[in-house]
């Protein structure tokens, strides 16, 4: 009974902790979004007078409007070797602000308080900044010393991602909020704004509001409005959550299925071995219904007990998981919430499985008249196994035949055991393959695509002649410039805003690499775009797109797609730089450069560049790689830890119960073997060969299942931020098999101890 309770406890625990964690995250996000009045639509523009706000307010379907001034600037933090990048944004009065700041400590600066800021919590933590700390920043060409007044979080920056980067690096990218009037003045933007966020009225159509907004902002250099689906932080959060949902649903589901099977099997067997007790009860005049309800109550009691233990442990575990997640999901009110619905769901499934198993066992036990049931059970019927029938008989020892025939005699039990174990293998494969995919992606991104040492972006477009200046910088050995032009790609009614990156044909520091690792040559004309983008626009190589340039005269031109690339990070569109200049209206300018630096000069070049006023950001792929690696490893390590834990529990439960049932069903047979002179080891080997064989059969099935599930998972995790490559290393297969074998050995060890305590004589004296 205790083992049934344990299995139910494990299932309840899994459901409550994994699915419960996901639901807690969603609840915390929703309440955060609601409380902070998270906007529905955002738009960036060059500059518009504040008076336009009422015009936007008057648009059909718009509920509330919040205008801002925001820009990027280089920030120097004491003790931090390389410069950081700050996203500076204005804060308005509480009542007009959308995406309100949530202060963790300190206070908000007043509207006119110059050089006093609230900074994002992640940046503060990573750089050990507290209230009263100061940082220096180059704002609009002036070096200013900023005092930290408070530390806060914003729903628009749950994942602070620097433009163009693919993963948060909290040490080198942070958000800075200053009073509206003070920051506007510093940026020469008094009475104007360059970013607008709004919420929609209930029932308003997003696409409609976006096109209205685009139209009204067009004369002011509007860069294209977008909804939440394209808000960087939200997007990133969604992909993290969707991954969490996939694992948080899949694993508990497998668990419940395994538990249902185990409960059913264990109870059925347990009751079948008690046929004599049942016969005695019936001989005393108990009806079948009495006997049935007795066992049913016993089973339900075990389920209750298990569910109670499981809820306590599940609550504790869920609380711990959520605690670990607060590192990644920065919500003001993230805490584990025990869901009554989940608890009852786990309980009902367990109770049903136990009930069905108990009833099947009872039905089997009461089907015989009492007198017959009290006689020893006839030997079970066997027949030669399939291996023998196809002619392998002479290669099999008698003991091997026993093992094979036992497996074959109860095909349903054997198949379900194998399926149970294979799920455990599959969960491990799914848990670990993510590392393989990420390794592959990282290798591609940081060794083959981004080959530069430093990447520089300018505050505003500069002349291509900057190349010569960069090349002449001490320590720089190679420089390649690039341009990024905001544009809207239009195919029929589908449209997508994207920055088109222009490069030279012979550029080598950045390459375009396909999924298979092959390099793509930039065509002289036309676009090379990400598969994700092509799918969103439903176009293919050879299609012609309308491209609306979102700067200057905003020309709309037809451009051919030359190639579609299966890439993994972000969404890209590339073009030869001169072709891009022509597309953008002929003016030649660049937005940044990639540099190759002499050995050991990275820090000094980086510092020199940071002091150039026109430079907005200097980043190093190496630093990005390290932070990405760290975050991925930490983030996934938690997940993998739980996957390993849960799959081990499944393997243990299935194998242990299998061996236990065999032991109780065949204790007599094993005792006979001991009497015949078989040693304890030989008998144990015989008992475990059956479970061992099932485990061995289950491993390749588990691999196949894991491969398939991993593929499904990759498909479900396709987002704009990243696509995990579908790569499963042989190490993953080996490790998953090794873990499962380990669980099998552990189960055998436990059962073996029980076997050793078996009293030979008493077993043989009983009649079965």
């Amino acid at each position, binding site marked *: 009974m205790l083992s049934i309770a344990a299995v139910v406890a494990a299932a309840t625990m899994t459901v409550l902790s994994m699915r419960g964690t996901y639901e807690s995250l969603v609840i915390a996000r929703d309440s955060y979004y609601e409380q902070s009045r998270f906007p529905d639509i955002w738009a960036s523009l060059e500059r518009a007078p504040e008076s336009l706000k009422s015009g936007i307010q008057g648009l059909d379907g718009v509920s509330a409007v919040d205008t801002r001034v925001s820009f990027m600037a280089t920030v120097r933090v004491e003790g931090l070797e390389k410069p950081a990048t700050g996203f500076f944004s204005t804060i308005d009065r509480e009542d007009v602000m959308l995406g309100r700041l949530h202060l963790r400590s300190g206070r908000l600066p007043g509207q006119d308080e110059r050089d006093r800021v609230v900074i994002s919590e992640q940046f503060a933590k990573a750089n050990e900044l507290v209230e009263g700390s100061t940082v220096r920043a180059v704002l609009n060409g002036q070096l200013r010393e900023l005092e930290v007044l408070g530390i806060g979080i914003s729903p628009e920056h749950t994942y602070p991602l620097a433009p163009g980067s693919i993963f948060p690096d909290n040490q080198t990218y942070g958000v800075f909020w200053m009073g509206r009037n003070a920051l506007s003045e510093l940026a020469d933007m008094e009475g104007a704004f360059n970013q607008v966020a709004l919420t929609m009225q209930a029932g308003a159509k997003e696409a409609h509001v976006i096109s209205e907004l685009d139209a009204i902002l067009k004369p002011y250099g509007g860069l294209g409005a977008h909804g939440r689906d394209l808000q960087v932080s939200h997007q990133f959060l969604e992909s993290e959550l969707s991954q969490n949902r996939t694992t948080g649903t899949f694993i508990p589901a497998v668990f419940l299925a395994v538990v249902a099977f185990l409960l059913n099997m264990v109870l059925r067997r347990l009751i079948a071995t008690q046929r004599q007790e049942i016969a005695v009860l019936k001989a005393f005049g108990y009806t079948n219904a009495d006997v049935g309800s007795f066992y049913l109550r016993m089973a339900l009691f075990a389920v209750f007990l298990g569910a109670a233990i499981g809820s306590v442990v599940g609550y504790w575990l869920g609380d711990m998981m959520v605690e670990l997640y607060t590192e990644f999901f920065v919500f003001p009110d993230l805490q584990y919430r025990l869901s009554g619905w989940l608890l009852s769901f786990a309980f009902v499934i367990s109770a049903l499985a136990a009930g069905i198993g108990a009833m099947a066992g009872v039905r089997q036990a009461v089907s015989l008249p009492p007198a017959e049931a009290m006689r020893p059970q006839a*030997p079970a*019927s066997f027949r030669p196994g399939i291996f023998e029938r196809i002619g392998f008989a002479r290669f099999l020892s008698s*003991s091997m035949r026993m093992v094979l025939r036992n497996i074959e005699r109860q095909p349903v039990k054997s198949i379900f055991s194998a399926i149970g174990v294979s799920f455990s293998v599959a969960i491990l494969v799914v848990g670990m393959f993510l590392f393989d995919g990420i390794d592959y992606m990282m290798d591609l991104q940081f060794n083959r695509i981004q080959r530069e040492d430093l990447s520089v972006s300018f505050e505003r477009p500069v002349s291509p002649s900057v190349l010569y200046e960069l090349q002449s910088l001490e320590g720089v050995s190679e420089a390649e410039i690039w341009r990024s032009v905001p544009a809207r790609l239009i195919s029929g009614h589908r449209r997508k805003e994207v920055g088109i990156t222009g490069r030279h044909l012979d550029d080598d520091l950045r390459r375009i690499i396909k999924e298979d690792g092959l390099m793509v040559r930039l065509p002289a004309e036309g676009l090379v775009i990400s598969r994700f983008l092509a799918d969103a626009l439903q176009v293919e190589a050879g299609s012609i797109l309308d491209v609306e340039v979102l700067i200057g005269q905003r020309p709309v031109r037809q451009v051919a797609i030359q190639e579609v690339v299966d890439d993994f990070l972000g969404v890209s569109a590339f073009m030869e730089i001169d072709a891009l200049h022509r597309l953008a209206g002929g003016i030649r300018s660049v937005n940044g450069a990639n540099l190759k630096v002499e050995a050991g000069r990275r820090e000094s070049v980086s510092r020199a560049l940071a002091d150039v006023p026109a430079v907005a950001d200097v980043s190093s792929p190496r630093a990005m790689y390290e932070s990405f690696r760290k975050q991925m490893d930490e983030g996934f390590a938690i997940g993998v830890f739980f996957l390993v834990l849960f799959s081990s529990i499944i393997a243990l439960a299935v194998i242990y119960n299998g061996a236990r049932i065999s032991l109780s069903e065949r204790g007599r*047979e094993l005792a*006979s073997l001991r009497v*015949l*002179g078989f*040693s304890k080891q030989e008998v144990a080997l015989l008992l475990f060969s059956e479970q061992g064989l099932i485990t061995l059969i289950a491993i390749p099935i588990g691999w196949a299942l894991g491969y398939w599930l991993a593929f499904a998972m990759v498909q479900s995790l396709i987002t704009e931020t990243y696509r995990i490559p579908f790569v499963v290393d042989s190490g993953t297969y080996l490790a998953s098999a090794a873990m499962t074998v380990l669980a099998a050995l552990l189960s055998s060890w436990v059962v073996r101890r029980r076997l050793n305590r078996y009293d*030979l004589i008493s077993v043989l004296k009983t009649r079965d």
Partner: protein
Amino acid sequence: MASDQLTSDSAKKGPLPIFRARGVSKIYEMGEVRVEALKDVDFDLNEGELLVLLGASGSGKSTLLNILGGLDRPTSGMVWYREHDLSQADEDELTTYRRKHVGFVFQFYNLIPSLTARENVALVTEISDDPMAPEEALDLVGLADRMDHFPAQLSGGEQQRVAIARAVAKRPNVLLCDEPTGALDLETGRIVLRALERVNNELKTAIAVITHNAAIANMGDRVVRMGSGRIASSDVNTHRLSIEEIEW
């Protein structure tokens, strides 16, 4: 030393007995209750002898048989199988002893249900040094034509004969049978006993048969009666009856 003394004893009386038990007691602690199953028992079983151990249930006969067979250890006293001291043997030594020297037959046949008659016998011959062929052993008990049947396809008597074949196939020096006919009717029981008799006659295997059925006593060379954990009497049977002459 006791063994020296016994050796000189046996030198006087001829060949060494297969089993010698001296002063054997066995006490079971069953919860609060202490059961003294054997009280200071002295017992011999000689080479080639067919001995019937007679007694009511609870008389201690099964306990004695289990100790002789290496399934249990005495609480005090000494037990020798030939020159091996069983009372001091450890678990592994007892396993080897059972594997090589002794065959068991129980009331409830204890066959392996997943193996055919032939395979049940082969299970033992596979781990023995000088076994007979499984077919030969089954032929000895008259089951040459049922060799490929599974236990579920055999009658009780047939199953018991398979158990006997399995016990004798390794050519043990001694066969210990605990109520071999207990679950069988008269006619089937006779067939089983005939198989035992044949083993005793043809292979010269010493056999100890436990029964509470006094009629069976007449088939033995010697009848030992037990009661309340003690040997009540030990009588040599001057004319051993054939199985056909036995009635119960």
